[in-house]
């Protein structure tokens, strides 16, 4: 299957790219492992212009619909392999292979783990990484949330609607959420208790989480008995496919792009949480904007390189693949 552009990733960056690519009339395919990326898990989005408050999954669904109406195709599958032959790419997902003149890596980021013993074994059994998914399961219970950033505070606010008590465990000296979210959290009063300068040192439990051990005592004890532990400590960029293609990364492991979202490899563009643009400021508005720019660069690239992929690379690629 031959496309002008294959977008890998179906979060805000991928869908922002898809909208523009559709309007540029590029034959476009979006491949996505998890529809909606981080936005779909984010709960209510209140800072996307034009939408005062919208559920993240709903926002992603609207973006998909908007791009789909322009002829953009979607396949719900993980891109597992990518290769390059001259100015042509082949992307494998499930049992299918897709050829493209250009690709946009909108591969997003993977939630960071605490890296503690027992964490993997108790995932889903008290240890969780998606508060919008599993937070409401803990109705009337006591939970802890790890992380002092905006995602953690938003998660705490959401979970507080259901749980009896929430402990926000913050490694640093401050909570660094958006002021408006800090105000919302403070308005919840004693329901959320913030433990600053504290880390989770151990996760204790056999078949399910029983308690956590803290790095410093809280109310006279290192042990904190909770039913659930939610981890919101940021994310690591997904750069496996980028690495295979020889795309350059920065010192923090993000894809290096210029201000037009071009990587060091011709025909490879990147956008969203996996790239180094906008630094640590990871928002839907920035991700979608990066996607729009990446699609524009792919469109301009297509104009310059014309039909190179179809003329030269695909027969050669097919020959290699058939050996």
């Amino acid at each position, binding site marked *: 299957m031959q496309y002008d552009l294959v977008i890998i990733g179906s979060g805000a960056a991928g869908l922002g790219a898809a909208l523009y690519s559709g309007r540029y009339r590029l034959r476009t395919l979006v491949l996505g492992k998890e*529809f*909606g990326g981080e936005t779909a898990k984010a709960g209510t989005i209140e800072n996307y212009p034009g939408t005062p408050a919208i559920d993240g999954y709903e926002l992603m669904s609207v973006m998909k619909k908007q791009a789909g109406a322009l002829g953009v195709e979607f396949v719900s599958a993980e891109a597992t392999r990518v290769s390059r032959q001259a100015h042509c790419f082949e992307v494998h997902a499930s049992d299918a292979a897709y050829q493209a003149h250009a690709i946009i890596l909108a591969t997003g980021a993977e939630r960071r783990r605490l890296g503690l013993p027992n964490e993997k074994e108790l995932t*889903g059994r008290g240890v969780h990484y998606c508060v*919008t998914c599993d937070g409401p399961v803990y*109705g*009337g219970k006591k939970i802890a949330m790890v992380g002092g950033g905006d995602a953690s505070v938003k998660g705490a606010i959401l979970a507080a609607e259901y749980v009896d008590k929430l402990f926000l465990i913050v490694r640093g000296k401050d909570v660094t959420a958006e002021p408006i979210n800090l105000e919302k959290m403070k308005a919840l009063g004693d329901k959320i208790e913030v433990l600053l300068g504290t880390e989770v040192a151990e996760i204790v439990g056999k078949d399910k989480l029983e308690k956590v051990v803290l790095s410093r005592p809280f109310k006279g004890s290192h042990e904190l008995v909770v039913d659930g532990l939610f981890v919101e400590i940021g994310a690591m960029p997904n750069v496996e496919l980028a690495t295979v293609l020889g795309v350059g990364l920065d010192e923090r492991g993000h894809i290096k792009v210029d201000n037009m979202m071009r990587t060091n490899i011709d025909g490879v563009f990147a956008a969203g949480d996996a790239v180094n643009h906008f630094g640590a400021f990871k928002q839907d508005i920035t991700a979608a904007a990066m996607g729009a720019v990446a699609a524009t660069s792919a469109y301009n690239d297509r104009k310059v390189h014309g039909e190179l992929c179809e003329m030269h690379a695909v027969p050669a690629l097919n020959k290699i693949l058939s050996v």
Partner: protein
Amino acid sequence: MKNVSIYSTPTCHFCQAAKEFFKEHNIEFTNHDVSTDAAKRDEMIQKSGQMGVPVIFVDDEMIVGFDEAKLKSLLGVV
């Protein structure tokens, strides 16, 4: 017709995706909101041994999470 049920929460996007999948393919299903129904929450934990949603049953077959390929196979959806 297979008996399909889903244990879900209202804010879980994977649960929404699963329910949209059922609707798209005209598959009738029973939804258990475990954020409000404590008995069904306990039942889900007892059956699945874990607290993550969604938990989906197609007759006696249990799927934890939204596994579209597996659901298609179990439900005979192309």
